């Protein structure tokens, strides 16, 4: 267990440092967003570009992707029905809840975790691409269908391809990952100074991402006292941190994934909830408070769950 802790301690100590800096007011509310911007526009794209350049297209393992897709679909459906039947949530709130239990905070948590465990982020790339392009698009599409404020005359058929194109071409994380994969697969050499510079900037990803995650948690922590939906948030956290990775493990096992892919799949699914879900919840006027706390709670609890998963799978 001590060996497992030595791998993950950097992650959780950096988050804790960020929380302390947020609580001590050394950093003000809003500063976390600037650091997150640095991660999403600079460090993460540079890191992924290099990882994907070295990894090439074989990371798109069919069994690996299918295991993830099946596990995410199962969890999404389960969360939706649990919210509707047991907690009598509205359909929009239930859709948000299914996003909360399936969407993973890739940039701020999973990538640093993969860097620590696998020394590279390339294994997270195909799952992240699928999550951002397919599941997120479908999630927003379903929310738009449900939303009464969205004009009905909108062409929903064109929405899906348009959003997919928008995500692929406007997200620097995805653009540079695909560029890296293409250049790597075509064996186009990149100059040494370009690759060393990309590594130099990309290597800052983990520390800055985790620190900013800690800051975000600290800034939203106080409001946790006012939360009343304890049962629902507990259920969502259990689904996110335990059930989702467990189902992924079971499916991955039946697909006979290698130990490395299986570990990557489980760690990806066991990562805390994505921070962008509360922005979506706010946009559709549904459970934005619950979404915020789900991010905080799963981040804090992941200290235990990630270590347990790593310990068990090693």
């Amino acid at each position, binding site marked *: 267990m001590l060996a497992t802790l030595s791998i993950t301690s950097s992650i959780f100590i950096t988050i804790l440092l960020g929380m302390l800096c947020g609580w001590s007011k050394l950093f003000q509310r809003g500063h976390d967003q600037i650091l997150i911007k640095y991660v999403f526009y600079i460090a993460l794209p540079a890191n992924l570009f290099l990882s994907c350049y070295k990894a090439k297209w074989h990371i798109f393992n069919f069994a690996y992707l299918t295991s993830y897709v099946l596990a995410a679909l199962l969890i999404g459906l389960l969360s939706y029905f649990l919210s509707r039947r047991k907690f009598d949530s509205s359909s929009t709130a239930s859709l948000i809840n299914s996003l909360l239990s399936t969407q993973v905070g890739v940039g701020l948590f999973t990538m640093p975790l993969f860097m620590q465990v696998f020394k590279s982020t390339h294994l997270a790339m195909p799952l992240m691409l699928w999550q951002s392009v397919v599941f997120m698009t479908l999630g927003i599409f379903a929310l738009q269908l449900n939303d009464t404020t969205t004009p009905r005359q909108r062409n929903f058929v064109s929405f899906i391809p348009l959003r997919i194109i928008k995500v692929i071409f406007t997200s620097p994380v995805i653009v540079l990952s695909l560029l890296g994969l293409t250049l790597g697969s075509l064996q186009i050499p990149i100059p040494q100074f370009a690759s060393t510079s990309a590594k130099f900037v990309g290597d800052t990803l983990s*520390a800055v991402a985790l620190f900013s995650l800690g800051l975000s948690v600290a800034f939203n922590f106080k409001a946790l006292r006012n939360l009343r939906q304890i049962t629902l948030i507990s259920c969502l956290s259990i689904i996110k941190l335990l059930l989702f990775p467990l189902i992924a493990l079971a499916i991955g096992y039946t697909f006979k994934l290698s130990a490395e892919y299986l570990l990557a799949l489980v760690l990806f699914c066991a990562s805390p909830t994505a921070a962008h879900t509360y922005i979506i919840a706010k946009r559709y006027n549904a459970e934005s408070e619950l979404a915020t706390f789900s991010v905080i709670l799963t981040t804090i609890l992941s200290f235990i769950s990630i270590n347990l998963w790593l310990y068990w799978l090693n």
Partner: protein
Amino acid sequence: MLAIFNTTSILFITILLGFIAGISGLFKRGDDQVLINYVFYIALPLNLFLACYQTKWQIFDPSYLSSYSLAMLVTIVGTYFISRKLLHAKVNTSQINTLATSQVDGAYFTMPLFLLIFKSTALAVPLMLTQNLVFFTASLLLLQLYNEQSKPTGRYLSFISQRSWQVLIHNPIISLSLLGLALNFMQFPLPNMLTSNVKFIGSSASAVALFSLGMTCAFYLNGLKQLKQIIPLASLSLIKLLIFPLCAWLIGRSFNLSHELLLALVLLCASPAATHTYIIANKYESDAQVATFNVVITTLLSFVTINLWLYWLN
């Protein structure tokens, strides 16, 4: 020359990336301060703590320190007389000009440069300590003496001791460097987990520092068009980037410094002007515009000068 360019290109590409991010409006004015805060309060103190903990006490070489102090004194006196006699500047402005040519931006340029060249920041520590504790305190005292609004009440000794104490306590870079040195001196063992965590966060210092320096340059570049004091600015930049390191090199050679210490001395002196000089210039209502642009110009020109110094000394 190409080998040297390959080494330093990382530095300047990162500054350029920050510059582009600032010019393009991806980051707003003020965002650079958040990244600087991260470097100044979190990443760099930890990096220096570890560097000092792992270093040997030989870095406090009396010849190395004396060469630096003598070169500083010569540059300060030279700049002061050029300002007063040739540029006809006021006493206050001339004092600020001495800061602009002798104070080095340790955190945002020199430390990343040292990490790249020497794989450690340890060699910069004794010189940075001398700069911040001795020269900067003395300069502030002189500025206060000649400033009509803030003349001290006569207790100069208490001012010096108070300021030294203030620097030691409030500057995390210095306090953690000294803590690292103290633990090193006592041969106090640190747990492996702690050193790996400190390294994890500390290693992000260089890239974030250089990126934020590029952003700062971008935000101030527009104002450069309105600048009329071209001759003072050119003179100060020339002294900072060429005369000061040349002077240090000559003194260092006469002290028979080893090649490594001579290179470290010259590179530290050839680093761009410190960003804090324009804060001081603003405080004492002196020529803040020249001080600000001096930082921008010396940073941009250092791309040429640092490469030339490295090429010559190697």
